[in-house]
């Protein structure tokens, strides 16, 4: 032992490799001295966190969902909805600091299904399920004023323009593909991509990854002109809500009772969710429409199979998100002289003395596991595109101006534009004060 002390007195630089070495033999170490008085303290484990915080969050989530449903369907007050939005932004965003949110909880749920050693907290299950349940009955009230990511975008949406329909429909497919990606990465335990690429949580925390802060800032600037860009073209949870909202029991309506087709609300939605009443297709175009639907239906399976094949080909790049795959590629590049020097990771790996073959076998295993999911992801993407094409070629009858249930987030901005609403609020006595129905109808017909 004195020798050891001398060694360090003259400062022999030992290799830091010792850090990763297996448990050192006891005799290598300097023993704890035999003290006369002093009691060697026991080092304690880190103190636990308070679970109460999570339950408070869940209760507030429930309360906010109830309030949003009431405002969207019963009291129809845009002002109260806006106040609730601000409240949600403050609590779920800046105070609770965004984590965990319903969007990210998708991944916890998927991980819990695929990985038996991961126990999902009950609060996370509730954060995941409550908005889904509310959507089935009241539409996307969660998006209206509860979700902090929606709220921050809602507040900046002041000068929105209409996105061309073709672009809106194409970009609108991306959330479903993103959802697929998030699911395969969570299922294989590779990563939580939704959290990693969350643009707004770093803002709520006022710290975090700089790239994501910039991305979030860019989205907010964009959000001034294009309403809720994250919600419409990225959010994977919104994709699920959009599907559930289609079959919701109740849903936000623009007029308080009957639509008089005055067209006043037509352009009022910042998110392009208002659908005009549809004209029945002319008799002579019907066979053509039927034929194009038949073609779409026939193409659908081909599309799914083709995309599944593409997924198969994407296995290698998809697997690259895994740490060990990247490490193996790096080690290979170093060994073949393609790159100079070592990274922290490759150096640490070499210091462990673990044979390269073991790493390669592990990587082969990871790739084969991801391959199955990559094929599924491809098929899913094909399916999403096919369903979109089919739904675009189906004629839907609409008799009045109404929000498209999947895209409407129940924000309530359109109520105000409806003259019937103004009557209901007692602001005007009669609809004719605002619109001349005769001429409006004539205009619509022309």
């Amino acid at each position, binding site marked *: 032992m004195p020798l*050891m002390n001398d060694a360090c007195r003259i400062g022999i630089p030992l290799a*830091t490799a010792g850090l990763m070495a297996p448990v050192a033999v006891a005799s290598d170490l300097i023993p704890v001295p035999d003290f006369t008085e002093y009691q060697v303290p026991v080092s304690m484990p880190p*103190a636990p966190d308070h679970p109460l915080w999570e339950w408070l969050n869940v209760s507030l989530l429930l309360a906010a969902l109830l309030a949003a449903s009431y405002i969207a369907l019963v009291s129809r007050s845009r002002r109260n909805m806006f106040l609730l939005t601000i409240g949600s932004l403050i609590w779920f965003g800046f105070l609770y600091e965004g*984590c965990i949110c319903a969007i990210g909880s998708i991944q916890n*749920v998927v991980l819990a299904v695929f990985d038996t050693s991961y126990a999902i907290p009950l609060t996370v299950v509730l954060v995941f399920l409550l908005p889904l349940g509310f959507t089935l009955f009241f539409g996307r009230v969660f998006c209206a004023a509860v979700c902090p990511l929606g709220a921050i975008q809602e507040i900046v949406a002041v000068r929105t323009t209409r996105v061309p329909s073709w672009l809106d429909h194409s970009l609108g497919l991306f959330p479903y593909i993103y959802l697929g990606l998030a699911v395969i990465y969570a299922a294989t335990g590779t990563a939580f991509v939704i959290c*990693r690429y969350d643009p707004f949580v770093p803002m709520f925390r006022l710290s975090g990854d700089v790239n994501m802060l910039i991305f979030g800032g860019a989205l907010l600037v964009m959000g001034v002109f294009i309403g809720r860009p994250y919600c419409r073209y990225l959010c994977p949870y919104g994709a699920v809500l959009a599907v559930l909202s289609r079959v919701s029991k109740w849903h936000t309506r623009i007029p308080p009772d009957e639509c008089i087709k005055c067209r006043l609300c037509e352009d009022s939605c910042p998110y392009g969710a208002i659908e005009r009443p549809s004209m029945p297709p002319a008799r002579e175009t019907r066979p053509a429409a039927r034929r194009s639907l038949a073609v779409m239906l026939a193409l659908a399976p081909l599309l799914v199979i083709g995309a599944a094949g593409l997924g198969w080909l994407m296995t290698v790049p998809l697997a690259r998100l895994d740490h060990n795959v990247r490490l193996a590629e790096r080690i290979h590049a170093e060994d073949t002289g393609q790159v100079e020097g070592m990274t922290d990771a490759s150096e640490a790996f070499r210091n462990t003395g673990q044979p390269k073959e073991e790493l390669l076998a592990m990587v082969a295993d990871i790739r084969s596991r991801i391959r199955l999911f990559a094929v599924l992801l491809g098929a899913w993407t094909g399916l999403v595109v096919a369903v979109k094409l089919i739904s675009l070629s189906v004629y839907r009858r609409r008799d009045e101006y109404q929000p498209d249930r999947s895209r409407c987030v129940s924000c309530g901005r359109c109520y105000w534009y409806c003259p019937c609403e103004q009557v209901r609020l007692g602001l005007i006595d009669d609809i004719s004060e605002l619109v001349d129905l005769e001429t409006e109808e004539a205009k619509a017909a022309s």
Partner: protein
Amino acid sequence: MPDSSPKKDRRGFLNDALRTTSVIALAGAGGFLAGRRSEGEPMVWQLDPDQCIGCGHCATYCVLDVSAVKCVNCFDMCGFCDICTGYFEMNYLALDTAAENQLCPTGAIVRQFIEEKSGQRFYEYTIDVPLCIGCGKCVIGCALMNGSLYLQVEHDRCLDCNECAIAVACPTQAFHRIPASQAEILKRRAEAVLGARGRRMMRDAGDDTQRYREGAELLERALTQRRWRQQQQSASSASSGSEGTARDA
């Protein structure tokens, strides 16, 4: 409302059916997940100090301004050295507490003289936790000797990010999700010494029930670690086992 056309009814019916199915599916999923939960408990992030190389990412990648990762000293592994390689710069000017001699950039390690015995002076090193930024410099330093200084995530500071930003960046993938009640991952050696101390305390306790209980707690802490490591091992061998069969097929 002029909505009583058969077409509307059919769609209404379909919607009702789909909604009911969805409600049942959600309830089922909830039940299933809640069942899963009862098999375990909430998970928190923790790093395995045996895997850690003190790369410094713990200080820089945490989403908090001051990292939730802090240094701990496992006293039962410490040599209480005069010339602590975790405390002093490699080329220190003097063995005193002047900042330029210290390895720690924030002066978070408190050095305190304990006693002198047969010509050797012994010092205790404790971490002033609020000052520590989790940079791991002292961890690398101490690894030259006993390795009693190592990093751990402090749960009362940690935000429990759904995906820990350090876990993503850690070059050795030292971060794991562990049950909240386990709280720590001990070095294998710390597990051994703490377990031994627990046993010793129980043996020497005599009539002192308080001391006996403390010993038993310490032993249990070490055993928890052993169980966790075994579980990790069996999980990884299970996955390599499946890989074997995959290659056979």
